[in-house]
């Protein structure tokens, strides 16, 4: 792990940061909550309560409240499921893939993005359960010995999804908790009273001995190496939920890479939305600097450009296929009754990201924050357009129908933001949101014989 670049070296003054400064600054983020934090937490919990209430009504009365209208039986819930699963992907990209690439800039941001991954996948995992209608028998999805000796159909992409999502949730949670161990120990050694007791328990005896580091560093490398193909597989599997069917607009071989790029794009959008206010609230501007935002923005530009290509290619293939159903679907995406959604998707994703060619915009925090909101909206609409516009006009015009979203759709959508926000806020206040140990690893320790 011969890392030579200082994580925050690009802005000169940070070179003076010592190991004890890092511990002090990160532990300071865990102090008593401010009023602003409590307001945000209250907002998140209120949204969650809206979601819970909506869900209870759905359990009582059934899915009839949602805006399903034949032939559209996948709509806002599946859209939001894919949206949240996608959000998670940027976290794993930054924490695992950039770790393998030895990108020095990942250190300062990876903990917050990894936490975002875990909570986004936790949120996404709720949606298939809400969507199935009889939520209390969701465990029928799992292969377990039952009195009817039935097993699930492993040839169905929906079952691949069950395995992909549950593996992703387990592995990313493991990766997050494992990475937290040394940092929780560092916090334990700084605090006192009941907090010390709690962190002692959660650091499970970590002391940073040579033996512990020896196994830990190796294991971290292998976890990153396992998480890398996993993250690419998860959104590919999600895309096959669509691509394996015969619905026009879904049945494309481009879907897996297209979805993975879109997932990472949407995830980085959410990363920016979260860490721009977070670093100010926690006063860690010197740890997460322009250098990190510049790199995040470049990643956004790359994935946004892949999306631009994928959108163009979808239209090209639809035209080139000579297939009237495919052509009609794509014509109606741009000029049909859902034209506004189709153009929202194209403008927010393919075009807004092109602004990031300019360095001035990449290091302008306000501009980045605004762009990140566009990305979040655009990526939700991308999934909405793919799912709803394809289903609403598939083959026979006689059977076409439009979706009519209702309060039940929006209530669950709002609840999902509340659920995600609540977990993220609670995490940020209780665990180090910047990886103490990894930043220390990049700052050379003082030497007796000159040098640093």
């Amino acid at each position, binding site marked *: 792990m011969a890392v030579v670049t200082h994580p925050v070296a690009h802005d000169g003054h940070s070179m003076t940061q010592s190991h004890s400064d890092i511990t002090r600054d990160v532990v300071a983020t865990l102090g008593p909550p401010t009023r602003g934090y409590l307001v945000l937490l209250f907002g998140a919990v209120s949204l969650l309560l809206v979601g819970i209430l909506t869900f209870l009504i759905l359990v009582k009365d059934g899915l009839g409240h949602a805006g399903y209208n034949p032939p559209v039986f996948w709509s806002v819930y599946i859209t939001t499921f894919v949206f949240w699963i996608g959000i998670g992907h940027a976290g794993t990209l930054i924490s695992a893939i950039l770790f393998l690439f030895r990108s020095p800039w990942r250190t300062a941001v990876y903990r917050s993005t990894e936490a975002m991954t875990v909570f986004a996948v936790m949120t996404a995992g709720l949606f298939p359960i809400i969507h199935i209608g009889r939520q209390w028998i969701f465990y029928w999805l799992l*292969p377990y010995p039952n009195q009817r000796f039935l*097993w699930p159909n*492993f040839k169905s992409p929906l079952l691949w999804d069950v395995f992909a999502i549950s*593996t992703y949730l387990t592995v990313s949670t493991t990766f997050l908790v494992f990475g937290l161990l040394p940092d929780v120990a560092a916090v334990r050694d700084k605090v006192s009273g009941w907090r010390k007791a709690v962190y002692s328990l959660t650091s499970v005896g970590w002391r940073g*001995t*040579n033996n512990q580091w020896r196994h830990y560093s*190796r294991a971290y490398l292998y976890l990153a190496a396992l998480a890398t*193909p996993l993250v690419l597989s998860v959104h590919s*599997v999600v895309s096959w939920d669509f691509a394996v069917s015969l619905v026009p607009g879904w049945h494309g071989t481009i879907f897996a890479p297209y979805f993975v790029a879109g997932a990472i794009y949407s995830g980085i959008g959410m990363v920016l939305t979260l860490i721009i206010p977070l670093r100010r609230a926690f006063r860690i501007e010197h740890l997460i600097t322009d250098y990190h935002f510049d790199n995040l923005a470049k990643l956004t530009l790359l994935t946004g450009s892949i999306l631009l290509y994928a959108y163009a290619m979808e239209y090209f293939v639809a035209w080139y296929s000579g297939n009237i159903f495919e052509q009609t679907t794509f014509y109606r995406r741009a000029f049909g009754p859902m034209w506004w959604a189709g153009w929202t998707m194209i403008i927010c994703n393919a075009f807004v990201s092109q602004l990031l060619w300019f360095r001035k915009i990449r290091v302008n925090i306000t501009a980045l924050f605004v762009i990140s909101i566009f990305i979040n909206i655009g990526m939700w609409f991308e999934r909405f357009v793919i799912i709803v516009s394809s289903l609403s006009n598939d083959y026979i015009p006689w059977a076409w129908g439009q979706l009519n979203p209702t309060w039940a759709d929006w209530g669950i959508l709002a609840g999902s933001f509340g659920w995600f926000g609540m977990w993220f806020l609670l995490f940020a206040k209780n665990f180090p949101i910047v990886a103490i140990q990894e930043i220390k690893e990049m700052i050379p320790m*003082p030497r007796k014989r000159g040098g640093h």
Partner: protein
Amino acid sequence: MALLKRRPVRVPGLLASFLHVDAAADAIRAVRALGIRDLTVYTPAPNHEIEEALGQRVSPVRLFTLIGGLSGCAAGFGMTIWMSYDWPVLVGGKPIASIPPYVVIAFELTILLGALSTVAAVALFSVLMGKPGAAYDPRFSDDQIGIFVPAPSDQAGRVEQLLRSAGAVEVRHEA
């Protein structure tokens, strides 16, 4: 449980703190030259100079990653193929056990068991190969390097001198 039982035992020895990484590496080499091998070195982050001075071999966790991954792969194919034949249903004119879709399940289980067994191996090795009873100081997770040398009282003076001349900022006797 073994962990809880072993903890209260305190090993007599010397606990030295270092601010400088090269000083700590010198001290490790000097103590190892004396023939004392079971040192415990605490660092705030993994450090290559310290690892080289200790002459550690690569951790065996990778073997567990491999075993876990292979078992996951075998479990994935085994489960899907066995369950398909246990209640054979013809789906889409495909063979009862159709390998291509099962690759997805086997792949996910490879990752799942590979990752979980890696973490389990770290927990196992940290307990099994750890040196119980070594003294600790909270500063070692902040900005100092700690070296605990288990030494009987007759050797303690000599070791202390070595640690101090290498550049220890503090040496404590732990009984």
